[in-house]
């Protein structure tokens, strides 16, 4: 729920002209950042549980992931709107510009994850396969960070902070990899 607050504020800002002189650009930037932040948070759940033993992060993980996908979809829709829904332009961008390629690929990778976010999908796929499929989230978040890094004109501080956090989260997982037994206990 809280994750929808920025969307509400964004809408309010847009309605009251608070987005500044270039509202589309600002909305694109913010939805992109929200996607990246939420993806990082969703991937932080397991390391956080491994480090602290808390269980609540794991319970909101799915919501965080779905919110991330929602903002990614919004980000993409704004991009499409900005290019007047011209699919030729979009295809050209995706094929020619590595920064768009990275972002678009990340979005595509998130689609199957969002589609299989229900308990029923977990059952249908089997937990092992479901887990393997959802490891795509790591690829997506890395591509997302790269997309941000390439999209920035000059100051790379923020993208590098995201990249560092992502790297740290990977490190925690690699160092404290749970046994396969414990992994299956996590199934819901």
């Amino acid at each position, binding site marked *: 729920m*809280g994750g929808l607050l920025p969307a509400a504020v964004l809408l309010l800002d847009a309605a009251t002209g608070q987005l500044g002189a270039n509202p589309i650009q600002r909305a694109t930037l913010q939805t992109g950042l*929200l996607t990246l932040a939420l993806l990082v948070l969703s991937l932080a759940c397991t390391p956080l549980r491994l480090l602290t033993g808390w269980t609540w992060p794991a319970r909101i993980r799915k919501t965080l992931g779905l919110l991330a996908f929602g903002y990614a979809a919004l980000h993409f829709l704004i991009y499409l709107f900005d290019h007047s829904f011209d699919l030729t332009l979009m295809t050209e961008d995706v094929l020619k510009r590595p920064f768009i390629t990275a972002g678009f690929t990340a979005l595509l990778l998130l689609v199957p994850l969002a589609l299989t976010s229900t308990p029923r999908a977990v059952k249908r796929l089997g937990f092992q396969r479901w887990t393997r499929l959802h490891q795509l989230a790591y690829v997506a978040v890395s591509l997302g960070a790269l997309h941000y890094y390439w999209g920035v004109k000059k100051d790379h501080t923020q993208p590098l902070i995201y990249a560092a956090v992502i790297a740290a989260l990977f490190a925690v997982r690699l160092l404290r990899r749970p046994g396969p037994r414990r992994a299956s206990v996590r199934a819901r």
Partner: protein
Amino acid sequence: MSDRTPPPERPDPESSERRILTPGSPNPRREFLRSAALFTATAGALGGGLELLTRRPGGPGAAEAQGAAFTRPARPLGPYDTSEAVTPYAQATSYNNFYEFGLDKSDPARMAASLKTRPWTVRIDGEVRKPMTVDIDTLQGWFPLEDRVYRMRCVEGWSMVMPWLGFPLAALIRRMEPTSKAKYVQFTALLDPKQFPGQRQPVLKWPYVEGLRLDEALHPLAFMAVGLDGRVLPGQNGAPLRLAVPWKYGFKSIKSVVRITLTEKQPQTTWALAAPQEYGFYANVNPAVPHPRWSQATERRIGELGRRKTLAFNGYAEQVAGLYKGMDLRRFF
């Protein structure tokens, strides 16, 4: 709510809910309240945190018309003016790229007060007959001030229509009396981290340096602005003296100039040094040559939602294309 609800700190073992539960499992109502509180806290923290992390300060607002007005005669549009709608003053003075003040577009308007534009001197040197240091008021007194309504296209893909006030660069250069060795003009902006807090970060190599070929600089469109919309140029727009070369990407139009040097060799310009594969010395607006990371085919005019097609030389091809005859503009981007 109901009077049957036990106070959370003293659960009643006789309550009906309690009896149907297996021993040790929590009271469902208490559990509900607890999770509602937890939910609200998490949601609030998450929402607030995300806002802090991703929302960028924005909004015009800060842009009140400031500065004394110049007296100038009302006039019809001149031969170099565009008749397109002028960008509202509030937007033209609140959405600026001026990294000396900070990286966000709203930083320049916020920080501009730290720039002191009087007294201000401009050093004129290099391949000139009479090198000198001249006070800005003296310098702008040399020329009758003119209005010029120019398009401004940023390399990032947005554009504005700016009502500059100033004088042609050619007039200044002629007055500088170039020697026969002069081939280029180099402009240097103020270096002072106290007035330009953005210069404390090495985002770019400070001071900002730009340059033009001498024939480009002598073109009647090349303009030195000291005002905007009939008023003294605001700090965020490059006070007290800035270049305006409308057929080139905005970063060529250097702000807050303190030195103009005529040179024999092509100057090393700031963005071309920072990312030579992305920004060239010429930087002519060219929809056919994409930036390595994004297309330059379209632009958003500030104040409009959609995009419009970007024009060759920003719509000034008729006037300036001749300067580049025989040059491969894909190579000399």
